[in-house]
């Protein structure tokens, strides 16, 4: 690989900057509030940049462009959903959740419904969603490092976790706020600069390596191409073609020239396929083979329509249930600031998502070979050097690689902090030392799963965790914040039913992907069914168990909704949740405050 040197240098610079900023931010972090919520004093604009930096994961940076390359216009629902989900979060959750004064989602559940059992269930789902979201980040990191340098994928996974763990161990939330705010702007630059340059080149030089499309819209290779598959793939061929192959085709070994009639073909891992210029491009199963379908929305009929709606549902309602996004709001000083932060995030997200779409469209012209292997997540990384096989292309490619690395780092740190925060306060005793242990445990679990599980498209796995969040925490938060009637029994049954359905659907999808793809799309995109079921369950069971409504529900809702100047907002209710050590510290602080200043806040 030519661009290795440049990429390694820029990725290294990104890692060092991350580390330095983390160090600067963590110099004065030493209490639990420092670690978990950055002392609740982060300004709205910086917090917004940090949230965006955390939210724009590998799925956004690499996945969106890759899916546009593969699936065309229907893939645009991912960025739309990621943004609209943030809007839903701002409308219904941001300010009241901040006023609740809890540290983590289980904190909120217990403060609102007063049940320790419910709290344990929430802890379980926070860990599930966090890890489900962490694994694709790490796998993409491995894939990126492998694509740009040829180093083995496991190294990328370990490097990302190592940098994250050092930063998190050093300063917790305080350190990563600064780091993530920086990484948002880094990512925006890393995707905007190449997009502008490549778009100008694309407009200026048609036919410059672009592939020809025949009248019926079938994609053809612009020049002789050699493609080596990574995993086993099934490709669809629409026009009869000839190619030569070395490796496993349809279960038997082949070496030499092959003739493919239209149909489905199975290509084994590490098989080399050689195409001549002008031959049609076989496309991985499930994606449109012709540009005609790629350009037009909703060409998959009713099941495509169902999938689109399910995706809209999952992302629109799932964002508010993501633990690593929620925990960020606790770092705002009050509810009004939380709302303003969310608005600023909407602006930053909209700005970012303009670029991956453009890159995805351009890469359709230059990187048809990725359609054969299905590894379209690498499109953004490969596009600059494919369009400009010179110094400019190498530098741009390196910038993109550094941006992608920033994406893995920031999202992974956010996930590790939020999962470790929950583990340390709910499973371990909740001191700073426990937080460090929890970080190590979370990181180790992430590495193990990322290496053990088969890789899939980052956006698809992420969509699954959105579906899980939408079917568990979204109903809990919405009903908990806006409806007096919720009881802990209802919430718990709802969590179990919603979460259980999504996890079951995921298991069915995995089994079917190994045994011939027989599962209907409702299993891979279950949100359209599971979210209403979870809502209904929670409401019905709560009505049946109305006796168990918490007695102080009015007081709690008052605290969630009363405007900030009235001063009802309380930070974490130490009397109810705190450990003995924290209570002692709280009392001491109170005494000191009382004697030092007149008690007017």
């Amino acid at each position, binding site marked *: 690989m030519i661009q290795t040197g440049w990429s390694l240098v820029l990725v290294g610079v990104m890692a060092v900057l991350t580390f330095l900023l983390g160090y600067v931010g963590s110099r004065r972090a030493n209490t639990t509030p420092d670690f978990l919520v950055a002392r609740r004093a982060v300004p709205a604009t910086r917090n917004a940049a940090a949230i965006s930096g955390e939210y724009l994961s590998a799925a956004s940076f690499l996945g969106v462009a890759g899916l546009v390359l593969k699936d065309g216009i229907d893939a645009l629902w991912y960025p739309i959903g990621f943004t609209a989900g943030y809007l839903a979060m701002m*409308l219904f959750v941001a300010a009241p959740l901040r006023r609740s004064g809890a540290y983590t989602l289980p904190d909120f559940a217990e403060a609102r419904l007063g049940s320790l059992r419910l709290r344990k269930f929430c802890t379980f789902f926070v860990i599930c969603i966090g890890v489900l979201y962490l694994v694709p980040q790490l796998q993409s990191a491995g894939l990126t490092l492998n694509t740009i340098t040829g180093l083995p994928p496991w190294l990328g996974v370990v490097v990302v976790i190592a940098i994250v763990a050092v930063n998190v161990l050093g300063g917790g939330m305080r350190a990563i706020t600064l780091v993530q705010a920086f990484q948002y702007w880094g990512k925006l630059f890393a995707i905007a600069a190449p997009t502008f340059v490549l778009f100008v080149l694309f407009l200026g030089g048609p036919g410059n390596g672009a592939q020809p499309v025949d009248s019926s819209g079938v994609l053809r290779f612009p020049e002789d191409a050699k493609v080596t598959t990574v995993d086993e793939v099934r490709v669809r061929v629409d026009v009869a073609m000839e190619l030569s192959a070395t490796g496993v085709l349809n279960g038997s070994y082949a070496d030499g020239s092959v003739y493919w009639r239209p149909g489905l073909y199975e290509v084994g891992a590490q098989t080399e396929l050689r195409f001549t210029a002008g031959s049609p491009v076989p496309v991985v199963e499930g994606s449109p083979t012709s540009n005609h379908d790629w350009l037009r929305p909703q060409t998959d009929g009713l099941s495509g329509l169902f999938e689109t709606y399910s995706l809209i549902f999952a992302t629109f309602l799932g964002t508010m249930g993501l633990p690593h996004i929620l925990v960020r709001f606790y770092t705002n000083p009050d509810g009004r600031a939380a709302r303003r932060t969310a608005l600023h995030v909407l602006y930053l997200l909209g700005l970012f998502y*303009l670029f991956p779409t453009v890159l995805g469209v351009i890469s359709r012209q230059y990187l048809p070979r990725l359609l054969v292997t299905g590894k379209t997540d690498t499109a953004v990384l490969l596009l600059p050097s494919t369009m400009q096989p010179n110094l400019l292309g190498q530098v741009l490619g390196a910038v993109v690689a550094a941006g992608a690395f920033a994406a893995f780092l920031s999202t992974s740190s956010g996930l590790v902090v939020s999962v470790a925060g929950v583990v340390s306060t709910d499973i371990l005793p909740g001191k700073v030392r426990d937080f460090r242990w929890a970080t190590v445990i979370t990181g180790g679990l992430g590495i193990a799963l990322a290496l053990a599980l088969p890789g899939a498209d980052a956006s698809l796995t992420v969509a699954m965790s959105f579906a899980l969040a939408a079917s568990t925490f979204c109903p809990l938060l919405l009903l908990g914040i806006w409806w007096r009637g919720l009881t802990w029994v209802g919430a718990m049954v709802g969590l179990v039913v919603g979460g259980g359905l999504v996890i079951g659907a995921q298991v069915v999808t995995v089994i079917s992907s190994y045994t011939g793809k027989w599962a209907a799309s409702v299993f891979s995109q279950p949100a359209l069914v599971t979210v209403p079921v979870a809502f209904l369950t929670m409401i019905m069971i709560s009505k049946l168990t109305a006796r168990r409504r918490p007695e102080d529900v009015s007081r709690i809702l*008052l605290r969630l909704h009363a405007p900030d100047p*009235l001063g009802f907002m309380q930070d974490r209710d130490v009397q109810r949740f705190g450990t003995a050590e924290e209570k002692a510290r709280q009392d001491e602080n109170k005494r000191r405050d009382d004697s030092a200043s007149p008690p007017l806040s």
Partner: protein
Amino acid sequence: MTSHSGPPGQPDQPQPAERDAWLSVSARKNRRRRVVLADPRGRGRVLRTIIELEEQTSVGEKLIRDLIRQQLRTGLLLGGGTLLFLALLPVAFYLLPWLSDVQLLGVRLPWLLLGLLPFPLCYGVGYAYRGLAERHEQDFVSSVDR
């Protein structure tokens, strides 16, 4: 504090009214207190309504219920409207395939509708919500502050 208010020789005493504000209601009744007629912040009166809210009297309960309903209605209208608009797009593309061939400025209409429009739309809706929600809260504070 701009003016010297305490007795001579004890310049740093807080205003009695301020001090009273932080005692419980029953404790306040039994104390001798200095009456300040023109307290510019009206802190004492706000506090009484806050106590009313806190103790869940019928007035306080109704006030907060109305605020919650108002905020929820705003959120549902804005969020539901956005969701409805976005959710109509796929079915429109499905039922009216000719939409895909309309070109605007050299780009096909669906690409503009999906790739560009939703982002400013979301920001606009969020901006409107922030304004409305903050106004509702302002109204609530001033109704408490009567």
